[in-house]
């Protein structure tokens, strides 16, 4: 009898070993840091996840930081540079496919592609030839010929890698942190991304000047060397990616987690099965971000002309959005984690952004207020919106959903960037601000509809944190 009972207990222990909170796991005890179930290990993984994004975003804004120098070398007009480089890094078709692939073991495949592409991002310009990977051949040719199109190809490759990195990162975060600290994690990831961008914006100029002093002349050589130095951060990301890959494999082994091995087939045509709330989330994403990034891109002259700022002040106020979002994102993510009710937070963020844009357009009030509001609402939206995708979409479609979301966001950004440039050239800043306000209004309409659709269908998007935890516990116990 006792043996039977012992056997039953053992079986029970085996079955429930997939529950991360169960204490009776494998026989070998592990320190808190090495145990994939413990919070400390997850924080360890989070660290690498954040730095993975840092390098990518650091290189991402390189052409913007060195805009004048790139223009001088390529002798193309400003809007062409802005448009071409932003459009090329938005290769949405590829991104959707990568998102589709970033399921179960293909998370690792995406990471490998990222490694390759990051090597490509190391040398996006004309440089002295070096031994190395396959893309170095392209670089060598480019160095000899000093061609702008080579930079474009480099950016294209970077786009493939960088964006698949973002999708893999998102899916990864959900895999590790769903139901626990997901909002906080998204906030932190955004933080690191913005930090990378801001650091890049501020130091690339001086790096270029130092290199110019060393090399002795400006031109494509100096630009190439500066970009190579920036590319060193990609090596850092590379290392983080490798570590993350190893940790993920290890956790899989220890926890016997079968990610997506449910027998459900993953198809690209899953896209047409996306639920209506997900499409609303897409619209919110597009409508919101097109009112932030192009505005920051074109904002400096606005502050100089309308508010009589000096160029240095205008640059400072332009970057305040990112500077605020770096510390604010984790804090706001933590808050959303504790309180829940994501849809309400998204609504707050969108309304605040609308107010900020209208303040800038229709009043002469101190623009620091409006830009600070913009920074806070931008952080809040990122923390509250991206995790919602995980609540609406089944696990096996998550990568596709994130990939698609990134795709159309970037497509929207590319198109709207060019539209914003031409609106400004012809109609001025007031019209541009009204246009951005209209985009935010579109996002507002989508949020309001999302709230009511969710409310009326009895969905669970807008649950408070405690209610969601209860729901999760119920569904977990149901599945046992």
């Amino acid at each position, binding site marked *: 009898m006792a043996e039977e009972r012992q056997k039953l207990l053992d079986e029970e222990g085996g079955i429930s070993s997939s529950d991360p909170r169960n204490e009776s796991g494998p026989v070998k005890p592990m320190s808190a840091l090495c145990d994939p179930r413990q919070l400390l290990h997850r924080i360890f993984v989070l660290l690498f996840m954040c730095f993975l994004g840092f390098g990518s975003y650091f290189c991402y804004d390189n052409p913007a930081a060195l805009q004048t120098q790139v223009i001088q070398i390529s002798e193309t007009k400003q809007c062409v540079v802005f448009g071409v480089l932003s459009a090329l890094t938005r290769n949405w078709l590829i991104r959707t496919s990568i998102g589709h692939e970033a399921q179960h073991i293909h998370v690792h495949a995406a990471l490998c592609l990222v490694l390759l592409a990051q090597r490509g991002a190391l040398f996006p310009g004309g440089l002295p030839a070096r031994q190395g990977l396959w893309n170095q051949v392209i670089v060598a040719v480019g160095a000899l010929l000093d061609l702008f199109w080579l930079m474009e190809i480099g950016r294209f490759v970077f786009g493939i890698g960088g964006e698949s990195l973002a999708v893999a990162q998102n899916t990864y975060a959900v895999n590790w942190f769903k139901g626990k600290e997901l909002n906080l994690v998204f906030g932190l990831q955004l933080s690191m991304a913005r930090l990378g961008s801001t650091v890049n914006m501020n130091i690339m100029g001086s790096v270029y000047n130092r290199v110019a002093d060393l090399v002795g002349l400006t031109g494509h050589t100096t630009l190439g060397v500066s970009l190579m130095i920036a590319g060193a951060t990609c090596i850092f990301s590379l290392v983080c990616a490798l570590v993350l890959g190893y940790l993920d494999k290890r956790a899989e082994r220890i926890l016997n987690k079968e990610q997506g091995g449910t027998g459900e087939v993953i198809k690209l045509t899953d896209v047409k099965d996306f639920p209506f709330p997900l499409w609303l989330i897409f619209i919110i994403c597009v409508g919101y971000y097109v009112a932030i990034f192009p505005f920051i891109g074109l904002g400096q*002259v*606005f502050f100089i*002309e*309308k508010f009589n700022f000096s160029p240095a002040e205008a640059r400072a106020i332009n970057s305040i959005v990112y500077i605020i979002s770096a510390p604010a994102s984790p804090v706001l993510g933590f808050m959303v984690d504790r309180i829940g009710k994501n849809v309400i937070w998204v609504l707050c963020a969108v309304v605040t952004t609308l107010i900020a844009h209208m303040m800038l*357009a*229709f*009043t*002469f009030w101190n623009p620091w207020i409006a830009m600070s509001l913009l920074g806070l609402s931008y952080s809040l939206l990122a923390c509250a919106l991206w995790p919602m995708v995980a609540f609406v979409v089944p696990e096996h479609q998550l990568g596709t959903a994130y990939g698609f979301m990134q795709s159309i966001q970037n497509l929207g950004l590319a198109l709207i960037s060019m539209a914003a440039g031409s609106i*400004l*050239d*012809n*109609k*001025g*800043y*007031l*019209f541009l601000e*009204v*246009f951005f*306000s*209209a985009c935010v*209004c*579109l996002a*507002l*309409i989508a949020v*309001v*509809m999302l*709230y*009511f659709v969710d*409310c*009326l269908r009895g969905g669970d998007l807008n649950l408070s944190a405690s209610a969601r935890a209860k729901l999760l516990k119920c569904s977990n116990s149901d599945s046992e």
Partner: protein
Amino acid sequence: MLLTVRFSSSFIGNGNNYRRNVSLELNPGLNSLLTPLPPGVGLLHVRALGKNNTLHYLLCSQGAPALLLVHTSSISSKVEVDWPAFLMQNTTGSLKVTPESSVLYSNALVFTRLWEYDDVNDTADPEHLPPSSFFQPYELQNFTWGDLNKTLDPTGHTALLCGRDASESFSNGLLCLKFSAFDFEGRDQGWPSLLHNANSSQLRMGLDVVAPRSNRSRFSLELQAVGDSQPMSRVDMLRSIDDEYTPSIFKVSQWVSSPVNSTSPVLGYAQWKPVAYRRPSPVFEDATPCRHSTPVPVAQLPPSGLVRAYFGGEHQTTGLNMTFSITGDPFYNTTWTVLVGLGSPPVDLFSPLVLVIMVVGLGTPMLIILLGGVCACVRKNRPQTQVYEPIQAKPGYVSRL
């Protein structure tokens, strides 16, 4: 090099839906056989007839080019010129607007000099430069002007006055003044797209292909104004949130003539936007700022035949300088053009498109919130359909124990 300045002087107080009947006349009352005109001299008279008043515009190229504006309370007022005396340039009263008792207001704007200075430190700030940086100014009174007859457009109510100096710098160059009169409210197509109405006229100045006298030359235009009772004495700089019609320009400058008490209405003004364009068909990057100096009283009348003929004697003159471009802008070279805008005083309003977008953009979410709220309330108040029937004894049912 083409430097274009648009200028307008006008009245306010008559509303924007006003319509006037505009007619152009060259050299009114001149018998060219008796008094032949010297070359390059012309007098353009534009009469803008309103319901019960008339606006007379007189553009003259004798001496420094001048635009005279006379507002009369009668619809039959006319301009009388004593041509022999007028051409002698030394008699006051050789140009009269009769009946003289009906004259309500008169104001003249004169383009007197074109200054050129060597901007050694690239500051674009001639007020703080030593006098040695300034070259000999181009006196516009010494320019030879073209024939107004050839450039008159009676249907479009425009005229073009172009002239050049005898010096080498202007060998291929021209300074042009394009005058436009308006009969109704409207807006020009080209930047700075100033809003005009029936009480305003416009002067567009162009400086074309003038050879600079140094590698770092910048230009400055001297303007003088004469008025009968109150000359234009101060410049107000107004800020506006609307830059739809002049992208990235949020200010308007108005050189006004009004009594000292600032609450009394402005009698007349010259308005411009503080921007110049480097090409005749500019794109966004061709804009360059222009600045004005504070108006100061000038001791004598400007050297314009028209002003001397009409005003003469003791009348207050004020003058200011318009400086173009800014630190860091390219210096003038032979392929560079500048456009400066001056305008009419009606206040710019948002275009209807902006208003529509804002109303639709803000109204739709409100509408949805309202509808959704109503739906949610209705749903809450709907009687709940019960899934299970209440357990109660039905007739005919006998409970069995």
